[in-house]
């Protein structure tokens, strides 16, 4: 069996027992990237020299019996939204092409402290604005299950890298579903922690009150280990929670024992009806049966304000985004255009640089956000959206009176063909229908596979109260174990061969 098909925990176990070296393991993943990434395009940059140097350093420390963290020597991919010292960071935008950060994002520093070799940077929609990676300035990522389809977004690169066995783990960021929706459509696992549970410092900001960094993995336990490695207070992020992170790995192990007796699980009426594909709902209903079989009680929960969450999200996200991307002005880093035009000023240079450096979705959201924040419209749009946010939090608070966790389909539909929604922004935004409410409320959420619909993966989402990420991991691990037993193998183990698919494409 190939090393790359092992879970991160299995890889860590082989390393700990010295049955494989980190250098071999890291090289195996670099070879896999060489083999398939021209078809998948999960990576924007690969960093073999740095990765192998760290792998050898871990091997040396292990050979001399030094204490090592649990994931030491297990390689990882990093979403190109997160600053990596010495490795180009583009955020999927032309305006940052060629930028080599002089610092590491806090989560990248933590991954390095966990002694994980960094394989490279993964593709994303420009500044994480999108649900398909098609808005990356450097071309889309392809879904490993069907190369003609989207891998989700914005973190399609991280999810595809994990699904295609190019990396066992990856970092993502989630503003409205950018970790969970790609996980759902690629048959993998992705978690958005409680807001403030993981540092955002060094991530290129999309919408600061919604953004949260989190893990992409193939299993719930793998995600738990990575989540625990990056969690915790960061004085450099003023929204970071100064309190001990929840015991996530323990909860995932507990959940995998398969007993949810006494657990009250709610199903949100507003997140399963209109707009959801019948096949996705079918897998969801079956997963509910499985949860009942594990001893959980299932009840329906009404969250009427969720009907407005999509609208509120669009306004808040676009408003914060338009403010955040103001920092790209052609002065401090990246692209500069129009400096030598006759009569050029700093302002004309800035406008020309942003026109040349931003893609269509970024322009759309910046203009929408500028509109929502402009005099005369502020109260009606941004102000009202912030009040809807209060209503959504109240709906969640009422739900937690009756339940310990909520479950929903993770996405309304499975992976659609590349190109299908690029010219239809509203249809694209609806990809995040089920994931948006948790960002507005700051609660943790994760997606795990619920099964296949016409050969394509569907996901189920587990939500838990703020600061209770461990509840979400316990439920998800229990469900994963039960579904895997029903299927006979993990869903991701059955993805069609990428080289055979691309061969078919070539023949066409």
């Amino acid at each position, binding site marked *: 069996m190939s090393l790359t098909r092992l879970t991160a925990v299995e890889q860590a176990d082989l390393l700990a027992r010295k049955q494989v070296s980190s250098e071999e393991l890291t090289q195996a993943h670099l070879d896999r990237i060489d083999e398939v990434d021209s078809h998948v395009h999960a990576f924007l940059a690969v960093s073999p020299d740095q990765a192998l140097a760290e792998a050898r350093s871990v091997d040396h420390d292990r050979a001399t019996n030094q204490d090592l963290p649990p994931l030491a020597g297990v390689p990882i991919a990093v979403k190109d939204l997160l600053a990596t010292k010495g490795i180009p960071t583009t955020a999927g935008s032309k305006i940052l092409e060629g930028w080599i950060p002089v610092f590491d994002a806090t989560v990248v520093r933590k991954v390095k402290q966990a002694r994980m070799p960094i394989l490279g940077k993964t593709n994303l929609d420009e500044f994480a604005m999108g649900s398909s990676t098609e808005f990356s300035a450097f071309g889309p990522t392809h879904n490993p299950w069907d190369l003609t389809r989207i891998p989700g977004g914005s973190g399609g690169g991280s999810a595809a890298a994990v699904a295609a066995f190019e990396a066992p783990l990856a970092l993502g960021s989630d503003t409205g579903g950018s970790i969970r929706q790609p996980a759902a459509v690629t048959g993998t696992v992705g978690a958005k922690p409680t807001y403030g549970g993981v540092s955002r410092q060094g991530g290129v900001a999309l919408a600061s009150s919604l953004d949260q960094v989190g893990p992409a993995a193939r299993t719930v336990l793998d995600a738990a280990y990575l989540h625990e490695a990056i969690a915790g207070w960061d004085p450099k992020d003023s*929204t970071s929670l100064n309190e001990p992170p929840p015991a996530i790995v323990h909860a995932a192990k507990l959940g995998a024992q398969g007993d949810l007796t006494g657990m009250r699980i709610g199903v949100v009426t507003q997140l399963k009806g209109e707009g959801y594909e019948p096949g996705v709902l079918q897998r969801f209903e079956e997963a509910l049966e499985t949860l009942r079989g594990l001893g959980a009680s299932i009840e329906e929960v009404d969250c009427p304000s969720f009907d407005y969450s999509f609208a509120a999200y669009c306004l808040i996200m676009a408003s914060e985004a338009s403010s955040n991307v103001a920092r790209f002005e052609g002065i401090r880093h990246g692209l500069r255009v129009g400096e030598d035009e006759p009569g050029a000023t700093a302002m004309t240079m800035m406008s020309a640089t942003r026109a040349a450096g931003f893609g269509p979705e970024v322009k759309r959201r910046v*203009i929408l956000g500028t509109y929502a924040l402009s005099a005369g419209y502020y109260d009606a749009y941004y102000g009202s959206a912030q009040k809807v946010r209060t209503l959504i939090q109240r709906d969640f608070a009422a739900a937690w009176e009756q339940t310990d966790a909520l479950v929903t389909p993770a996405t309304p539909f499975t992976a659609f063909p590349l190109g299908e929604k690029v010219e239809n922004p509203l249809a694209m935004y609806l990809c995040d229908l089920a994931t948006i409410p948790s960002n507005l409320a700051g609660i943790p959420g994760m997606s795990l596979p619920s099964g296949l619909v016409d050969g394509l993966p569907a996901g189920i989402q587990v939500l838990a109260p703020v600061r209770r990420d461990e509840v979400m991991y316990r439920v998800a691990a229990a469900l994963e174990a039960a579904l895997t037993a029903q299927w006979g193998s993990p869903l991701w183990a059955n993805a069609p061969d990428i080289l055979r698919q691309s061969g078919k494409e070539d023949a066409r």
Partner: protein
Amino acid sequence: MSDITREEVARLADLAKIALTSAELDRLAGQLDAIVDAVAVVSGAVDESIPATSHPIELTNVMREDIPEPCLTNEESLAAAPAAEDGFFRVPRLMGETP
């Protein structure tokens, strides 16, 4: 219907400092009109009595100790600049010609 005309998009693009092309102005006017129509429902969903939430988990007065910490050197700060001179970012002049 909302009222996002081509002229309104041009005004917003000027505020946002993005030099949009004529074709972009046309396309965005139609798209933004549809998006704003879809999201305008928020104003009917709330009233005066509901407080606004700006952050999911409210923290107040987050400050760190007033102790100097290492930061980027001048050279590091300028490393990615498109143009730098004498330890400063270099930019085109700020004011245009007086007519």
